[in-house]
């Protein structure tokens, strides 16, 4: 234990003396550790955002869409299978909502358009066409004001809920409720301000407004190809039954004969998560490869700096051996030194990675955060790199002949 502290002290001392050489080593390890930290925190944040979103949707809500690609399903001979499928329609959503096993089916449709208020223009704002149930699904708060009623929804009223970001830009400190803004050239009454939950897909981060679905379809230019629904089964109904009902209803409406495949996709949260996880596992592989490269660079630096250190301190090794240091004690001293070197890199990389994660959390919709596990993994990986790459120089030091080492000039 005492020689451990001594080793750390010697290591820090030789860091001070050989700043340039140590820098390469520390940089390599720091980059490796930083990559682990940043990607780790992104994955952790992404997963957290996902589970938050699924929580607001309720555990049984499932997704109905024109085509669910997912990762790894691509067929090179058939790159665009969705082209053969008809887009979903609002009529289909209304039909699904009437099913006794379905609590609600939320339409999610969007377009981009300019918004103008008193000569102030916001370009390419995301216009979301929703039905009256949308706040239930999306989570978050509407304050001040309210969302559109089922009546306004049915009537394709010209009312709009704007998100906080749009409100701040158009109205500043003023209360936007009751004012009239122009979307794609037509006037809408602002009835509410939406404060979104920290979400996965950038709600709240971009300029976004919400209008009744029918109003969007009729009045805002958009591509009607990619409408999809989130369907929630009734509380007492098992998800499988609701899925069966939805599938049968859509097949009937689309006139599919038995034996013909579905020309739409129904995706449960489990499958949704599976797809997302296969995406994040790609990130994980990238993370491991990048951090390995960083740690390798650091490791090679460790070998270089430690070999120099051993050569320069040949005499010291001779003295220590003459005073009774065994091979194992000399080996240990240099291993501790190597691990200290990489640990310094590890701490620097961790600090940098932590700061970057904080910045990412502030600047992007992903609620990146640093889980304790990745801090530990990063530090252990750094120390282990030092030990692993320190073995060669340390064992070289430990095997020096004391008489020759003492004579070394």
């Amino acid at each position, binding site marked *: 234990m*005492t*020689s451990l502290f*001594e080793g750390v002290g010697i290591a820090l*001392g030789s860091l001070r003396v050989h700043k340039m050489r140590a820098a390469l080593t520390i940089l390599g390890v720091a980059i490796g550790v930083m990559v682990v930290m940043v990607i780790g925190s992104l994955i952790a944040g992404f997963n957290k955002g996902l589970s938050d979103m699924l929580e607001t949707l309720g555990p049984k809500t499932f997704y109905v869409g024109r085509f669910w690609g997912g990762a790894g399903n691509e067929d090179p001979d058939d790159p665009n299978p969705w082209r053969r499928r008809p887009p979903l329609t609002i009529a289909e959503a209304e039909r699904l909502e009437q099913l006794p096993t379905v609590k609600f089916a939320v339409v999610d449709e969007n377009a981009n358009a300019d918004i103008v208020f008193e000569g102030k223009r916001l370009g390419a704002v995301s216009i979301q066409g929703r039905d009256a149930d949308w706040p239930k699904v999306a989570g978050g708060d509407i304050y001040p004001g309210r969302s559109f009623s089922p009546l306004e929804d049915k009537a394709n009223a010209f009312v709009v809920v704007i998100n906080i970001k749009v409100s701040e830009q158009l109205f500043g400190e003023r209360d936007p409720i009751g004012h009239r803004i122009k979307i794609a050239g037509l006037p809408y009454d602002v009835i509410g301000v939406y404060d979104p939950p920290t979400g996965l897909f950038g709600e709240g981060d971009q300029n976004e407004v919400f209008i009744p679905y029918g109003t969007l379809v009729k009045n805002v230019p958009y591509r009607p190809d990619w409408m999809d629904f989130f369907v929630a089964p009734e509380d007492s109904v098992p998800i499988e039954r609701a899925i069966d009902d939805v599938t049968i209803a859509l097949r009937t409406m689309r006139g599919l004969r038995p034996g013909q495949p579905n020309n739409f996709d129904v995706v449960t949260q489990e499958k949704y998560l599976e797809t997302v996880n296969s995406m994040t596992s790609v990130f994980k592989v990238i993370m491991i490869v990048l951090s390995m490269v960083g740690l390798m660079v650091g490791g090679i630096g460790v070998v270089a700096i430690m070999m120099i250190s051993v050569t320069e301190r040949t*005499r*010291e090794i*001779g*003295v*220590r*051996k*003459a*005073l*009774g*240091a*065994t*091979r*194992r*004690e000399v080996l240990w001293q240099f291993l501790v030194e190597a691990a200290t070197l990489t640990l310094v890199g590890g701490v620097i990389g961790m600090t940098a990675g932590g700061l970057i994660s904080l910045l990412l959390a502030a600047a992007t919709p992903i609620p990146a955060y640093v889980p304790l596990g990745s801090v530990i993994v990063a530090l252990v990986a750094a120390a282990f790199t030092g030990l692993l790459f320190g073995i060669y120089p340390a064992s070289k030091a430990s095997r020096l002949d*004391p*008489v020759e080492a*003492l004579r070394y000039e």
Partner: protein
Amino acid sequence: MSLAQQFRTGDTPLPDIIILTHKLARAYDMGGEVVRALRGVSLQIRRNEYVAIMGPSGSGKSTLMNLIGCLDTPTGGEYWLNGQKVSDLGDDALARIRNKEIGFVFQTFNLLPRATALHNVELPLIYAGLGAKERRAQAAQALERVGLGDRMEHRPNELSGGQRQRVAIARALVNDPSILLADEPTGNLDSATSGEIMEVFGALHRQGQTVVMVTHEHDIAAHAARVVTLRDGLVATDQRQAA
């Protein structure tokens, strides 16, 4: 003039004899050509003797000191230290013996340049496995013994040559070794400072310390009670003298 009865291979030395070498040999293989640095040295040194080893350059003095100090292993003969045969021990066992039984003083001091005097003196105690508190106390005591109680926090480059060598002596003493070995301890010092170091050695000898020292200078060797002269890897003369 025989100092002890003739030692035969297979005997165990008398308890009073700290160092016993029997036909000790050390040869270096220089790529085919064999250099025989020691060719059969038989020596017996008793507890509390003060021995100077002299001889021309290349006669094998340092080679013998390294063997006596367990830094090196002989290629022939036997070496008994404190009644234990050490000539065929392995690396780790020799390291333990160096730590417990041997105190080295070198011509070039061999202090760790970045460490304080105190820390330098603590080193043998670290390898002896002592706790930090005890180490500091013993190291401080050893420094006081050589008159450097007021220089403990100084680094070697903040000390004079004589002071550095005294730190080295304190380091050699701190483990209370059976023998103090010094290879030309005054070789890098002026004559006044050499005299001071010899006084330290003399005082240690009077306190009961066994001292073996290599020197080129007759007036340094004059401090010892016995002078062994080597020539071509063999003992040429072995004489007691008035201290």
